[in-house]
Structures are given as structure tokens and as C-alpha cells.
């Protein structure tokens, strides 16, 4: 091997590595920082793109709003400081996401680290954040395994851990004496698998018997045959837990099959109403049960940030679109960050976590009551009620059914 060729190759390799050691020279001015750097990831392609982009949009909306007011108030410096959002695209790939979370921490030296949408893309951030002692603002990553007493570097800002989602659904079913036979059809992944587990446990021993209980791959896109099997078990209530794609395919095939069940429950019409309505049509959604979330669900006790109507107006005038739940979840992350900056004595990560524990349970936003388990950082406040879509004029309205304190009416049972 000649020396010249060796050095040529090294030049080559060196140039490439330089290329990868991108930007982000730390600019740690002593004293007051010129900006608060918030880092997060989003997916522009791949299975999580739709949800992830919505969530980011909400967070961005908050950033713009705060900066128009001259920045976020930072208690540590007793003044408003502009917020800078640094975002990278992980294309729904966990490998890429791991690299990029690392990039945010080690190269961009962000002050605040927020996770991408959902459990899968959050999962890789958990150990990285812990290793670098960065508090991870987990927005919608609800995997139960993320939260433990050993790791103080995580806080779930929206939605409770997925295993807690069906609490009110189970109670609702148990409160309905006419429902004795229920069918459970779920996609086998962390998110819906844990919900199925909870529902199963909570219904156990009650008058509601699970006459059908089946997990299907998350990639399932045809439910026609499964529905046939369900029908053979003659349930009164059919609970389907899945990701949006599952719910769309399920509702679609249910409509095409011509079958009728007295009660049908799915998750995502309550979160991504516009998408679901345009995909399966309002007729299919009528009388379907769901977990309504904002904007379908309105919290009236808001003591921090705008109420739903104000937010909706502002969001529409900024982007022209009706906000969906993930927009609100992203915005809510911003509110929690804002409150944290306003109360934490320093920008040190554990100081922030302490301040979050201090306002936990006292913060009521348009997304509900923010309350975390002080030991694990898991969300326990924003519980999910049960509601039903009722035809109203040309469209649909949500009737809240359970728990009783939020109920706005009685269920239409059996469905028409």
C-alpha cells in the first residue's frame, strides 16, 4: 500500500468526519443567557409523521407566542428571556432519533430537552437523557417502563401512562347493567397492549364478561374477518384499541360489513377527530364511543394559559387550521416548560424537576390538570373520560358519559 494512497484515503475520511461534526459550538456566555434553548425531534416521514408533526406544531405555536411577549419569564434571572426551539427530523427511526437526541444535548447544549411523539420515539431518549442528566420533557410517550423511582430525569407532560387510560372506560362498562358480554380487540404493542391488560384486570369479576379477547399485529389493516369472528361471539360491546391506522381500518371494515353492535369503542376519534372523520365519514363515527380529549373535551378550570376557545381562535388565526389534540398536547408541553422556567430557582435540571413537583396538581391548563407522580414523573392528572359521538345537525357532537362529574348526558344504547 503506497503512502500517497493512504494519506489520500485519510484525507477523505477526515473530510467526511468533519462534515458530520456539525455546527453547534457551545456558546456559554457567563451570566445571563441570551436565549433559552429548547431541543426536540419530530418525524417528517414514517409511521409517526402525522402525529409528530401535529405535536411539534403545537409546541412551535407556544414558542412564537412566548417570544412575541418578549420571551419566557425565567425566575433564575428574574427577567424574560427569548426562547429558541432547535428541532431535528428523526424520520420515525429510533436509531436516528438516538443520534439526534445526543446531538441536542452534546452539541447544541439545549437547556430543555423535549421528546418526540409517542412511546417508540421517546423510548430511546429515556436512557440518553438519564445518562446526560437532562430532564426529559416527555410529551406523549406513555410507555409504563419509562417511569421508575430510580430515574428523576423524566416528566410526562400530557396524558397519563397508557396503562391508566381505560380506568374510566372499565368503570363505565361496569356501570351499565345491560352490558354483560364485551369483546376486546387490540393491537399488540406497548400502547394498546397495556390498555387491554388494564381493561381485562378491571373487568375481571364484574358482571361484564369478555367473550372475545384477541390481540392482532399493529400492522393489521383488514378487520373484516376478525369482525366476523367477533360477531360469532355475540358481544354487546366491542372495544377496539389500536393506533390511528388500526382504528381507521377497523371502522372502515365495520361499516363495509354491515354489522351492528350495541356499543363500539375506539381510541383515536377522540384525539384525531378531523382525520378520523375525513377517513371514515361522520356516518361511521355516529354513536361510537371514545376517550374525548381537547378540543372535543373542554376544561373549564383553566388557571394557566388560554382556555380552549381562546386557544382555538389564536391557533386558527396563526395557521388557519382547527387545532387537534396533539397540537394541544404540544402546546401544553410549552405551558409546562413556561411554568417550570417561571418557578425554578435555577436552570439546573434537578432544580427544574423539583419545581415541577411543587406545582404538580395546581396547574390547570386547557389540557386538564397537570399532576405527576412525584416519585416517577409519570402523569396522573389528565385522566381520560368516556364519551360518545351523537349526530348533531350535519356533523357530530360529543356527549360526555363518564365519570359522572363530567357527564353531559346518558349514552344512546343500543347504538342506532
Amino acid at each position, binding site marked *: 500500500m503506497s503512502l500517497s494512497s493512504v494519506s489520500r484515503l485519510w484525507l477523505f475520511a477526515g473530510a467526511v*468526519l468533519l462534515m458530520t461534526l456539525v455546527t453547534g459550538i457551545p456558546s456559554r456566555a457567563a451570566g445571563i443567557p441570551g436565549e433559552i434553548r429548547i431541543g426536540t425531534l419530530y418525524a417528517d416521514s414514517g409511521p409517526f409523521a402525522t402525529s409528530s408533526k401535529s405535536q411539534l406544531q403545537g409546541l412551535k405555536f407556544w414558542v412564537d407566542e412566548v417570544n412575541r411577549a418578549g420571551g419566557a419569564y425565567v425566575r433564575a434571572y428574574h427577567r424574560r428571556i427569548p426562547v429558541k426551539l432547535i428541532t431535528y427530523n428523526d424520520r420515525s427511526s429510533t436509531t436516528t432519533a438516538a443520534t439526534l437526541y445526543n446531538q441536542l444535548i452534546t452539541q447544541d447544549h439545549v437547556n430543555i430537552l423535549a421528546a418526540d411523539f409517542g412511546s417508540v420515539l421517546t423510548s430511546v431518549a429515556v436512557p440518553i437523557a438519564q445518562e446526560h442528566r437532562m430532564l426529559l420533557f416527555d410529551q406523549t410517550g406513555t410507555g409504563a417502563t419509562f417511569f421508575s423511582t430510580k430515574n428523576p430525569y423524566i416528566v410526562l407532560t400530557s396524558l397519563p401512562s397508557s396503562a391508566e387510560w381505560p380506568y374510566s372506560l372499565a368503570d363505565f362498562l361496569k356501570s351499565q347493567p345491560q352490558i354483560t358480554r364485551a369483546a376486546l380487540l387490540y393491537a399488540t404493542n406497548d400502547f394498546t397492549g397495556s390498555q387491554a391488560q388494564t381493561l381485562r384486570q378491571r373487568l375481571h369479576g364484574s358482571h361484564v364478561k369478555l367473550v372475545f379477547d384477541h390481540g392482532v399485529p399493529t400492522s393489521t389493516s383488514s378487520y373484516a374477518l376478525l369482525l366476523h369472528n367477533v360477531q360469532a361471539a355475540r358481544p354487546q360491546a366491542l372495544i377496539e384499541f389500536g393506533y390511528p391506522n388500526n382504528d381507521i381500518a377497523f371502522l372502515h371494515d365495520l361499516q363495509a360489513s354491515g354489522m351492528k353492535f350495541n356499543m363500539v369503542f375506539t381510541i383515536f376519534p377522540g384525539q384525531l377527530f378531523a382525520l378520523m372523520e375525513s377517513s371514515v365519514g361522520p356516518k361511521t363515527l355516529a354513536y361510537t364511543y371514545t376517550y374525548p380529549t381537547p378540543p372535543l373535551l373542554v376544561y373549564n378550570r383553566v388557571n394557566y394559559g388560554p382556555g380552549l376557545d381562546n386557544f382555538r381562535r389564536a391557533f386558527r388565526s396563526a395557521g388557519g387550521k382547527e387545532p387537534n389534540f396533539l397540537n394541544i398536547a404540544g402546546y401544553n408541553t410549552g405551558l409546562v416548560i413556561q411554568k417550570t422556567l417561571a418557578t425554578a430557582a435555577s436552570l439546573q435540571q434537578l432544580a427544574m424537576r423539583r419545581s415541577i413537583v411543587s406545582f404538580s396538581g395546581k396547574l390547570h391548563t386547557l389540557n386538564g390538570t397537570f399532576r405527576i407522580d412525584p416519585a416517577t414523573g409519570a402523569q396522573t392528572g389528565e385522566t381520560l373520560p368516556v364519551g360518545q359521538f351523537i349526530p348533531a345537525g350535519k356533523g357530530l357532537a360529543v356527549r360526555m358519559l363518564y365519570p359522572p362529574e363530567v357527564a353531559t348526558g346518558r349514552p344512546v344504547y343500543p347504538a342506532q
Partner: protein
Amino acid sequence: MPRGVWFSVGVVLLFVVLPFVYGNHDLLFSMMMYLVLAQGINVLFGFTGYLPFGYVGFFGAGAYGMSLAILLLHFPPFAALIAGAAAAVLVALVLAPLLRLSGAYFAIASLAASEVLYYVISNPHLTSITQGPYGINLAAVYDSSASYAVMVAVLALALGMVVYLRNSRTGLALQAIREEPVSAGFAGVNVVRERTRAWLMSAALAGLAGGAYAWHVSVFYPKPVFDLNISVFAIVFTLFGGVATLSGPVVGTLLLYGLYNWIGISQPQYFQLVFGVVIVALVLFLPNGLVSLLRRVGANVP
């Protein structure tokens, strides 16, 4: 000194030194991971001509072998890593009959095999063993520096393997099989044994990479470790640099994965497009990869 030793030592040293001057260790880790996988593809495709689309199956087998050895058998991480490699080799042994298929049939059959592996491991009925679709959590043994060090060692092994093949008659025999399996037989080469050996070596590399990856990320779901894109990346990097050479896959990975992260940090949606165009352009204009250009201008590339 056999050709390529200094080059390999240089590459390994680079990844030993870089963490001290550059903070994004995950990027360095993924770069090494793809260097290993690209060399694994090189061992198989470059030297024997079998294109394993399902190469990621070995990676996933390694990741799961490692994780389950820790979770079920309570192995310490280093022993579990070997278990991961063993799992990949075991899978390769079971799949060895696929080598009877030629060309495109083999490529597609190996892809199918990796899908089978994925659907079995992620099957909810096996949750009590594999955690099914719910994913693996190795937080208890998480150690980012030890797993980084392990990946450096795996990289050294991968480069060493290719240096050996480039300089030995075994490597020559494999290339003979790639060119004309029947003539290779008449050269006295035990075609079945040699190609199976390359297959197992290649699987072991992917298994080790998968095990080190599992340890490094410590929390993962089945889909990401059986993601077809991992095969695709490794194949494209190898083809781009040039197969059956030591430096080709290295240069291909550094350039393209570097580009991936560079674009990925600003404008990644065009990346798949860039990949596709690179593949088509390579086939039409530069079937022997980038290093063949260097060769053409007279450089002696390892």
C-alpha cells in the same frame, strides 16, 4: 504486514480518539455500527456474491439474543454479547439451505426469513419469552461507555476479518465461488463449506453489532432492530464504496452515513431519494463502487 492492516488500525484508533473531542457519541456509535454491518455485507456479498436483503435479521437476532440472555439467563453483559452473536450464528445455520438459491431468489428468500424472525419474536403469544411486541428494557445494565468500547472491538474484528479475506487464499476461494461456483469446485474448493463459513462469519458480525446496539440503547421495540432499512443502508454503503475491498465499505459508510446525518440534521426527507438515485447511478455508471475510481487513477487502495 498484510495489506490493509494500517488502514484498519487507523480507522479503529479514530473511533477511540474521537469521543474525547466530539460529544455526540451516539453518532459515532451508529457510524461504527454501520461500518460493521457494511463489512458484514462485504464478507458475504463482496466475497461470495450472495446479497442478503434480510441481513438485518442477524442484527435483530443478536440484539434479542443479547437481551434475552440478560433478562432470562441473567448473563453478565459481555457473556450476553457472545450469546447474541451465537443466536445470530444459530439463525444462520438454520437458514444455510437458502444458500442453495441463487442471485435474486436468495436475496428475497433471506428478506422473507428476516420477516419470519421479526414476526415470531414480536408475536404476542411469545410475550413471556421475548416480551413480544412490547419491547426490551435493559436499563439495569445500561452502560454507554462499555457498550461503546465493545462496538470499537467489534469494528476491529470486522476490519480484521476483511483484511484476512483480502490477503488469504480463503478470500480468493470465496471470490472464485462468487464468479463461477462450478469452476470453483474444479479448483478443489469445497463450495458448500466455504460459502457457509462466509455466511456464518457475516452473521456473527451482524449479531455482535446487534448485541452491542441493544446494550447501547437498552430500551427498544422489535420493529427498529428488524427494520429493513438497516439492511438497505448497509448494502448501499457497501456498494457505494466498492465490494470485495477493505476500504470501499469504510469510505462508503463514512461518506453516505455522514451525508445522512448532515442532511438528516437539516433536510432529511430527500434522503431516500438520494439513496435511490445513488443506487441506480452506481449500477449504470460505476458498478464497482467509488474505490474503483481511485484504482483507475492508479491508487493502490486496500
